[in-house]
């Protein structure tokens, strides 16, 4: 995590992920061949659907938006030495909160309704993050386990809430009503507005990390808790804040997805977005701007997957496989170039720390 800013834009930053993507595609291609599908046709459909037209590209950016935010959430955590695997649960809480605010609050003009709905998402995401952060800071419970557990808890709770309380009247499906038009995110030049929010936030996060005291505090805690403590930084408070911000960003991801793409909450809608965030953060080497290309690539694959299944008969889960392989190959060389070079201890120590 601790490479200097200049170094983090060296050739390896681009070449290694690129090579990883190619190797992953070759391996997944061989597996497709074994399943009796045509990998070339599959890949061509996959990428032509998502990057071949303005409409397709708009869909890609729509898919990429929550991914940028989920990746940013995980990145912020990593910077402070926290591995937030709970972006998924935080994102879902945000999505549900936003959807609720989006269809319950009536009679508001868009310029009030939209921000309020978004704030609901940030609030609930941040709240879930804060739970994990507080448990880490005050009870020494490792965030990886709490966030995983919270993911499952949120999944059950949101399902319960929708089934018993928020279900669309007369609807058999487990889903809420649609958010009102006054809370929907607009399109700018037929590109989803949420994407620009996400990019702007990533840039702001990068600037804060690089140039402010708060950013410095985060990084110091992330690198060495004892040094940070010695320097008079409140480690506990920093950890809690980091988890809360991380959760809030993930919640924003859920909000933007709800208000810009799905327009309602349905438990299955947001499946896996938070986990994609982990892959994206590691692909982008925990750099707030570095996550953007990975998010667009994975967003594109997600956007083109169903058409690929239709045309080439390859299961949409190919994307999960590709992502896993990419992550594996991008991280393996990181051994020497990144994690080991950092010289500091690993991102995460034992369970007690």
């Amino acid at each position: 995590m601790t490479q200097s800013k200049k170094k983090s834009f060296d050739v390896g930053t681009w070449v290694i992920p690129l090579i990883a993507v190619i190797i992953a595609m070759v391996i997944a291609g061989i597996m497709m061949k074994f399943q009796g599908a045509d990998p070339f046709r599959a890949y061509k459909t996959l990428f032509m659907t998502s990057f071949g037209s303005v409409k397709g590209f708009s869909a890609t950016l729509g898919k990429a938006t929550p991914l940028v935010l989920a990746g940013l959430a995980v990145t912020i955590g990593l910077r402070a030495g926290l591995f937030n695997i709970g972006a998924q649960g935080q994102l879902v809480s945000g999505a549900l909160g936003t959807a609720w605010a989006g269809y319950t609050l009536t009679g508001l003009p868009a310029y009030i309704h939209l921000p309020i709905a978004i704030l609901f998402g940030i609030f609930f995401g941040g709240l879930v993050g804060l739970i994990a952060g507080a448990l880490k800071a005050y009870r020494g419970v490792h965030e990886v386990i709490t966030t995983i557990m919270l993911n499952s808890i949120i999944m059950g709770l949101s399902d319960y809430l929708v089934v018993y309380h928020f279900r669309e009247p007369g609807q058999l499906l487990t889903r809420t009503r649609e958010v009102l038009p006054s809370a929907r995110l607009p399109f700018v030049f037929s590109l989803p507005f949420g994407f620009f929010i996400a990019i702007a936030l990533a840039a702001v996060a990068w600037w804060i990390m690089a140039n402010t005291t708060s950013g410095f505090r985060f990084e110091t805690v992330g690198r060495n808790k004892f040094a940070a403590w010695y320097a008079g930084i409140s480690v506990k408070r920093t950890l809690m804040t980091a988890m809360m911000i991380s959760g809030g960003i993930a919640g924003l991801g859920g909000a933007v997805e709800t208000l810009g793409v799905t327009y309602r909450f349905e438990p299955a809608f947001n499946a896996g977005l938070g986990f994609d965030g982990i892959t994206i953060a590691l692909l982008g080497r925990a750099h707030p701007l570095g996550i953007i290309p990975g998010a667009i690539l994975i967003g594109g694959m997600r956007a083109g997957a169903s058409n690929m299944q239709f045309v080439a008969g390859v299961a949409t889960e190919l994307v999960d496989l590709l992502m896993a392989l990419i992550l594996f190959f991008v991280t393996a060389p990181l051994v020497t170039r990144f994690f080991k070079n950092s010289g500091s201890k690993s991102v995460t120590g034992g369970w007690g720390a």
Partner: protein
Amino acid sequence: MKRHLTKRNLFILLIAIATGYFYSKDGSITTSVVSTATSFALPLALAAMVGIMCERTGIVNIGIEGTLLTSAFVAFFVSSMTHNILIGLTASVAIGSLLGLLLAVMSVSWKMDQIIAGTIINILATGLTSFLYVQGRTIPATFPEYDIPKLMDIPFFGQVLFMHGPLFYFGLFVILSLYVALFKTTWGLRSRAVGEHPSSADTAGVSVLRLRYINVTIAGAIGGLTGSFLSLELVGSFERGFTAGKGFTALALMIFGRWNPLGALAAAMFFGMTQAYANQLMIDQVVQIPTQFITILPYILTIIVLAISAGKVRAPAAEGQPYEKENA
């Protein structure tokens, strides 16, 4: 430390009292509830053994979930394709060991961040199993229940402990022998030394890296066994996301049981009981609980259990740190 011990004993006591109370009211139902609890608990306890094996030698294994998922998948699909559950079992233990070996390569040789190494295993497992998953496959049979003669006639304990399938007994055997091996043998002493103070172990002539490799790989094999138990004996099917976080719960049990096989077994039993009782309450309609709450109960328990114990227990000292020889 002392205070913590009594707290855990209190848990066990509470469970015993509750069980006794229910048993006096309706013996046969209570017996079957506790028997179900044991079946719930065993895979969790076994998965916790994977964690204990690794962490006692200083390797954090957060990839247990992925190991379980992959091996349950392999067990099921290989059995389905070969029409032979023994081949499925063998294949799943093999794939488990392979994943253990992969973790060892990443964390011991490549000196990667171990949490990230484990996460890679988890993501790989999810990707592979969901891509290769085919709907509608079946296996010829699950491992049949084998009631141990004589022992099964003991009231209560007979059905709870001695009316299960072969993998259950084998799993229990693994847990007990790991306890003995860890605390009563040279291997155990060496392993624990490597986990606590690798450079001292090294000085004493123990090959730190080799022992870590061996233990993490064996741990993977135990993970494979656990996966087999889930898909070939307990459930008899497989679907995407089949293991539903059991690997992570196992880590919590490991911590709650203080990296001790018997402690983890007790913790797993506590877990299994809570869930079995909650299920029974729902079936009896004693209380109207939405199913979602029953589903999330183990996860909430995991967090509570950790919040109680995490700050107070001590993990193996060298955990999570790659070992580098000084002056090598």
